[in-house]
C-alpha cells in the first residue's frame, strides 16, 4: 500500500458558469501528492474547463479549490509557481527555436545553475537533437508536442496538469511522450490529466474520475471502476457510465 503525503488538489463543490451555461456543477474531488489522476468524459463534459480552472486560467464561479494548500482564488500567483499546465492545442512561439523557447520559459522559474539544470532537463525531454535549434515553425506536430511536454515538465512542477497529452499524435510520438511523463510521475510529481484515450488513462492513472454533463459520475482506481461496472476495460466503463 502506498503512502500519500498530502492533498495536492482539493476541489470542493466547484461550479463554473459561462453566462447562463453551467459547465461544472458542484464537482468535488481530491488528488494526493504523487498521484496520477485522470479525468475522462465525452466532449463538452467539463474536463478542459476543470483543468483550466485549476490552472488559474478561468474564474471560479463558486466552490473552493486548493492546490497544495494554496487557495486558487486568493493565491493564484503562488499556485502558478508550483503548477505547469499543458493545454490540448498549445503552441510555442513560432519565431523562436526550440532551445530559445525553453530558455524563455526557464527564465520564469529559476536562475543560475538551477536554470541551467532546468534547461538540460528540457532538452532531454524534448529529444529533438539538432532540430532543437530550428524554428518551432518548422516542427512537425509530434516534435512541437514533445517540446511543449518538455517545457511543462522541465521546471519540475509539484503538479502538472496535462490536457489530452497525446491527442492527434502517431503511436511512436505518443509512446515517447507517455514515457517522459511517467518518468516524472515516478519521481514524485503529481499529475492531473484528461484524455479521450482510455488505454492511455488506464495505463497511466492511479485513479480516474468520469465526468459527464459537468458532474463527476464515477471515480476510483481503474480496477475498482472495472469491478463496479463489470467491464473488461475502462472504455467499457466509460460507455456504461455515459449511456446510463
Amino acid at each position, binding site marked *: 500500500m502506498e503512502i500519500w503525503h498530502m492533498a495536492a488538489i482539493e476541489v470542493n463543490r466547484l461550479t463554473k458558469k459561462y453566462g*447562463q451555461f453551467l459547465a461544472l456543477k458542484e464537482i468535488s474531488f481530491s488528488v494526493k501528492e504523487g498521484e496520477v489522476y485522470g479525468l475522462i468524459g465525452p466532449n463538452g463534459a467539463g474536463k478542459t474547463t476543470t483543468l483550466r480552472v485549476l490552472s488559474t486560467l478561468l*474564474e471560479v464561479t463558486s466552490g473552493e479549490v486548493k492546490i497544495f494548500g494554496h487557495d486558487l482564488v*486568493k493565491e*493564484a*500567483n503562488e499556485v*502558478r509557481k508550483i503548477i505547469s499546465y499543458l*493545454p490540448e492545442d498549445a503552441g510555442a*512561439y513560432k519565431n523562436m527555436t526550440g532551445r530559445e523557447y525553453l530558455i524563455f520559459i526557464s527564465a520564469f522559474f529559476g536562475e543560475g545553475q538551477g536554470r541551467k539544470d532546468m534547461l538540460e532537463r528540457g532538452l532531454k525531454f524534448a529529444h529533438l537533437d539538432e532540430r532543437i535549434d530550428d524554428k518551432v515553425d518548422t516542427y512537425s506536430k509530434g516534435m512541437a508536442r514533445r517540446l*511543449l511536454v518538455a517545457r511543462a515538465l522541465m521546471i519540475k512542477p509539484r503538479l502538472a496538469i496535462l490536457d489530452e497529452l497525446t491527442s492527434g499524435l502517431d503511436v511512436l510520438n505518443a509512446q515517447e511522450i507517455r514515457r517522459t511523463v511517467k518518468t516524472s510521475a515516478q519521481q514524485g510529481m503529481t499529475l492531473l490529466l484528461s484524455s479521450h484515450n482510455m488505454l492511455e488513462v488506464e495505463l497511466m492513472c492511479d485513479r480516474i474520475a468520469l465526468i459527464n454533463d459537468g458532474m463527476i459520475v464515477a471515480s476510483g482506481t481503474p480496477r475498482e471502476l472495472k469491478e463496479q461496472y463489470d467491464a473488461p476495460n475502462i472504455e467499457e466503463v466509460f460507455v456504461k457510465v455515459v449511456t446510463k
Partner: protein
Amino acid sequence: MSSLSNIIKKEVKELLTPATLVPIIIMALIFGSLGGAIGGATSKLSEKPIVGVIDQDHSVLSQFVYSQLDKNSKIVYNQSDVQAGIKEVSAKNGVALIVLQSDFQSNITSNHSASITVVWIMRGAGMADTFSMAPVQAVLAVMTTNLSRYIIDHHVTENSSVILQPLKRHEDTEFKGRMMVGISPDIISSVVSQQGLVVPLIVLMVIIMAGSMVISSMGMEKENKTLETLLTLPVSRTAIVLGKLVGAAIVGLVVAGIYMVGMGYYMSSLMISAPIDLAKYGMTLGAFDYVLVGVSLFLALVSALALCMILGIFTKNYKAAQTMTLPITLLALIPMFVTMFTDFDTLPTSMQIGLFAIPFTHPMLAMRELMFGNSALVLAGIAYNAIFAVVAMFIAVSLFRKDILLTGRVKSAQRSRGGMLVQSMFGKRRR
C-alpha cells in the same frame, strides 16, 4: 439559381460583419460632420461681411469708398479710434477694420495710389479661419473697381496707373491678442499650420504602428495558442500587460522613427521658410514647452496602447486583429483633420468637449497651444491623458484577469445582467 443565391448569401454574411461596418460608419460620420462644418463656414460666405470703417479723410472720394463698403458689407464701427474699432468689430464677430488714410483723396489727385489699411481680426489659425476673409476681399475688389470707374467718370485724374490701381493696401492682423503688422491672415495660417503639422503626424504614426503591434501581438498569442501557457506562468497579469505595452511601444517608436525620417525630408522639401519671425510675437517654444509636448505625447501613446490592449483582448486571431486597429486609427485621424482644418479655440463647445475626450488630440494641439501661450489647455490635456491612461491600463489589467480573455465574447445572458465590461471587471477577482 438556389445554389448561386446560397453562395451569395454565405459570402454576404461572412463579409458584412460589425468589424467591417463599424469603421465605415464611423468614417461616414466623420466626413458628415466635417462636411457640416465646411458647409457652415461656406454658408457664412454668402452673408454680408461684418466690418468696421474709419474714414480719416472725410473727402468726396473716401466717402464714395465708404458708401461702396456700406452697400456690400455690414459696418459695425465708423468712428475714428483704431483700437476701439478693432475691439468693437471683434466683439461683433467681425472680420476686418478698414482704415481710409487722411491723405486718401490728395494722393489720388496727385497721381498716387490712395492708402488703406486693413486690420484683419483672426480668431483661429486653422484653414477654415481664413474663409471669412474671402467676402471682405470680394467687397474690397468690387469697391476698387467702382472707385476706378468713379475716377474715370469724374475725371479725378487721367493717370492710367492710378486708374488701374487706385488703392495701395497695407495689411495688419490682430491674432489672439497680438497685433502683427504687415502680415495677412493666410500667411499666419500657413506658418502656424506648418509648425503644428509634424507633431500630429508623429502622433498618428506612433499610434498606428505601436497600436497595431499590441493588437497583433494579442491576435498572434491567441492564434498560436501560446496565451494559455503565458497566463499560467508565475508572472502577474500587470507584468504581462506592461511587458506587451512596453515591447510594442519600443517597436512602434522605432518603426515610426524610421518612417518619420523619410517623412521629415519629404515635409522639409515642401515647407517654405517662415515669412514671419514668430519669436518677435512671443510665438516660440522654450525647453519646458518641449517637455510638456513630450509628456503629452508619451501619455497619449500609453493611452493608445492600453486601448489597443483592451481591443486585443477581444480579438480572436491575427486576421481579426488587423481590423481592430481601425477604430484607434480613426480616433487619431479625427483630431488630426479637425486641428488641420480649424482652430480648437474657435470650435463650438460640443466639438471642443468631443475633441478633448480623445486622448490623441492633446499632443496634436500641444505645440500650437503652447506657441500661443495657452499652457492651461495643454496641462489640462496632460492631466486628462494621465487619468485616461491609468483607467485604460486598469481596465486592460482587469480584463486580463477575466475569462473573457480566453473565452472571447460573453453570452447575451451574462450581458443582460449588468453589462459585459462591468460584469467582467467587477466580478470575482483573481490575483
